[in-house]
């Protein structure tokens, strides 16, 4: 077993488990801030998966593609957390609670 050959598979499996944990946070937690932490874990798992796939195909072209994908995912993750926090702040200002169950009402 060498790092070069086995690390991508281990990273990929860890990414799957981390995604599972992130989804646990989204499904289980009632606090909107806690759900954001779960979302962050899910985002990190996807990025780790991207890095693992990039490591699996070690040639210049695929490495560039993998890196570009990871940067796009990183940008999307930053934006989603920024928007999510703004929504949480607006929500608390209007309703005064962090309870996600209370946010079941879609106020369109």
């Amino acid at each position, binding site marked *: 077993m060498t*790092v070069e050959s086995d690390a991508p*598979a281990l990273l990929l499996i860890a990414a799957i488990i981390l995604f599972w944990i992130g989804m646990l946070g989204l499904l289980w937690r009632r606090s909107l*801030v806690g759900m954001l932490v779960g979302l*962050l874990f899910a985002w990190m798992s996807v990025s780790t998966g991207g890095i693992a796939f990039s490591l699996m195909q070690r040639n210049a072209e695929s490495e560039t593609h993998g890196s570009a994908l990871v940067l796009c995912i990183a940008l999307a993750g930053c934006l989603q957390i920024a928007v999510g926090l703004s929504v949480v702040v607006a929500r608390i200002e209007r309703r005064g609670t962090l309870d996600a169950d209370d946010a079941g009402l879609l106020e369109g």
Partner: protein
Amino acid sequence: MIGLLLFFLSFALLCAMLAIVLGRNLTRSVVAGFAMIAGLVFALLIARGGYFGLVVVSLGALMLSAIQLFGWMLVDVDRDHLAKMDFGTAFARSLAFAVFGLALSLLGYFLWTEGELRLGEETLRWVDARAVGFALFGELGELVTMLGFAIAGALLSSILLLRDDGRGNG
């Protein structure tokens, strides 16, 4: 080195689980989250994740800091003061989590046993995404993918159309 990589990955996953499980205390949850990121940094360094691995974990730490800052501004540091979850909700969420975990476990199992992800073999370097569908559903893999898209579309439409009065009867 593989042992070290396994250790740091296990540490990171354990900390991630703790961050979710210790949910009623924001500070503990955030600290566990930072420990998870630290474990992931070392794992990616050992795995030679390179520059983009560091970018990902740096952004992750930055986002966790933002969540921590806003969390401290918004809620009590020690508790978020939410009532205990009722049995029905807890059961439904546990079931959803169990089904989700089972699906991911099956995915990992088939990836492993069908030769697409075996450690130390050449097939490791070339993972075909379509092979996952084929391993799980055989010839029906593409049909199931289309069905999945249809179900996702229907669920999204339902969510967009669903309105209730916010008192738990919807």
